């Protein structure tokens, strides 16, 4: 049984199921359709960041700048929108800013030969600084009415952010599991030297994963600011940690080369369910962080590997 759980990496899934059972026993509202819809909606932002983070961590990198990238792209996009230009252009520019932010990370890491942790630690502060310069510390509001559809609209009862996230998940899954790109991303993280000798253009793949991460951070930024009807200078603060937590909860190795996107999806879902459950149960604020941390540790324990494997 234990072998079976390990072989198919079922730890995170079992953790999620246990969590579902416990919370639905404790709260009658949890398993309602409208609440599950809520959880999916609230998880979409972290899910997008975590997907990008999975690509990055698979190459044995890390992207600490995603929260700031989210904010800077949302703010630039919103400034374009509120200046009266068509909001579609605002979205396009926001996405470009996200990709550009990722490109800068990637260039320093791949061509500057600097450690991802250090580079993205720096750009995390840099991008946040640019956000603050642009906003003067105040939220940008009065976003165009049409723009709110992205965050608040729904299609056959499913919120649009959830639909967008599912599309991203499908594309990312195909990219990682059914394409040369995916195999090479795993190869770069598994052993960079070997990958290089096998003819993988390592630097290009490093650029690519950080650009994916930046792009998805911008998509998340658009969803968040559309839901709120405003772009906040503090948006995405600390989200990098939630994204990393989701990836690690999903069983992806921080040393790269090993992990799955499905694991990340489950990891992000666990975090979303915990937050929702604790709110529904009206757990005292003092206890929330402690409970959350304990649940994360237990979930990781369930997926623990033998040290010599």
């Amino acid at each position, binding site marked *: 049984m234990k072998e079976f759980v390990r072989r198919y990496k079922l730890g995170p899934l079992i953790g999620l199921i246990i969590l579902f059972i416990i919370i639905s026993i404790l709260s009658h509202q949890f398993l309602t359709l*409208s609440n599950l819809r809520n959880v999916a909606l609230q998880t979409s932002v972290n899910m997008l960041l975590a997907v990008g983070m999975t690509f990055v961590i698979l190459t044995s990198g890390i992207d600490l700048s995603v929260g700031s990238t989210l904010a800077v792209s949302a703010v630039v996009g919103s*400034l374009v929108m509120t200046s009266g230009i068509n909001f579609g252009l605002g979205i396009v520019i926001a996405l470009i800013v996200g990709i550009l932010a990722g490109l800068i990370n990637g260039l320093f890491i791949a*061509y500057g030969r600097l450690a991802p942790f250090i580079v993205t630690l720096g750009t995390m502060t840099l991008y946040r600084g640019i956000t603050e310069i642009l906003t003067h510390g105040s939220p940008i509001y009065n976003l165009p009415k049409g723009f709110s559809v992205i965050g608040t609209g729904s299609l056959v009862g499913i919120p649009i952010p959830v639909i967008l996230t599912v599309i991203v998940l499908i594309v990312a899954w195909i990219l990682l599991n059914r394409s040369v790109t995916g195999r090479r991303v795993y190869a770069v993280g598994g052993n960079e030297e070997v990958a290089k000798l096998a003819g993988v253009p390592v630097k290009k793949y490093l650029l690519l994963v950080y650009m994916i991460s930046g792009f998805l951070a911008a998509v998340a930024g658009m969803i968040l600011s559309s839901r709120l009807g405003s772009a906040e200078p*503090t948006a995405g603060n600390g989200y990098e940690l939630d994204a990393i937590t989701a990836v690690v909860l999903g069983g992806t190795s921080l040393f790269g080369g090993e992990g799955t996107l499905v694991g990340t999806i489950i990891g992000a879902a666990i975090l979303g369910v915990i937050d929702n459950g604790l709110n529904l149960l009206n757990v005292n604020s003092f206890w929330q962080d402690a409970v959350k941390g304990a649940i994360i540790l237990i979930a990781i324990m369930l997926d623990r590997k033998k040290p010599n494997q």
Partner: protein
Amino acid sequence: MKKKLSLILVAALTAVMVTACGSSSSQNSSSSSDSSSKSNSSSQKTVGLAVSTLNNPFFVSMRDGAKSEADKKGIHLIVDNANNDQSTQLNQVQDLIQQKVGAILLNPVDSQGLAQAVKMANQANIPVITLDRSVSSGKVTTFIASDSVKAGKMAADQIIKALNGKGKVVELQGEIGASSERDREKGFDNEIKTASGIQVVSKQSADFDRSKALNVMENILQAHPDVNAVFAQNDEMALGALKAIQQSNKKNVKIVGIDGEGEAIKNVNNGSMYADIAQQPSVEGQLGVDKALDLFNGKKLDSTVPVPLKLVTKGSSFKGF
């Protein structure tokens, strides 16, 4: 060679990004003159303002109030932004002491952590005036702030009035442990108890943050779809809660916030929010400079200077910050 080229490319891209962003902001000019570029005035007329963060419109308004008053009174103001980091602020206060400013206006990141900075200023005989929050020890010449306990009490009164003393209320707490959180909660909780028909059905923290409040409120609405009113300990959370309520198509949930942020005031005026308890951060900043000037002129100061709170309800002319 190739390596060099790529490094140049990286630098160029970064520069393009920074400048592109800079040029797209048109109102930027006001904040660029913060730095201590004018160092010719005598130290007597120099005041240092160490502000906890400029990442929040409240403190930006405090800074602006201090700045315009300083300009008016011919005082050279040095503004230091600690980005909510205690040790950064400690260093900045030390730097202000080194520069021998005439007085320090301190808006501390943390009431415990900055006591040390105040003691250092005390040793250097530089008077310290605290703004909005004070410190736990050390000698503070005067403390300028609005009364947070009273703000909570006023918010409770508005909710009691809005519900005619009967209904279910949600309380959104700020960052747990922050003095503003504790004081607003104390004032609110004590007052709301006096209305026996009102029940606080859920009390959750959203860290003074709008997007967190959106999610937290959505979750609470699942558990308590019949809530009648929301007390948010600041306007950012009130605005997040408002979005959650609007998106769930609930009508007639009364929201009361604290702070006086422009966006919240607008929502009070169009009826989306019930009321707001406005603080006046620009008045805090302005009074800070005035009191420093009083010190220079040898006047004695009271230990606290209250900044009046303003109750904002629909139709008021208050603008907010």
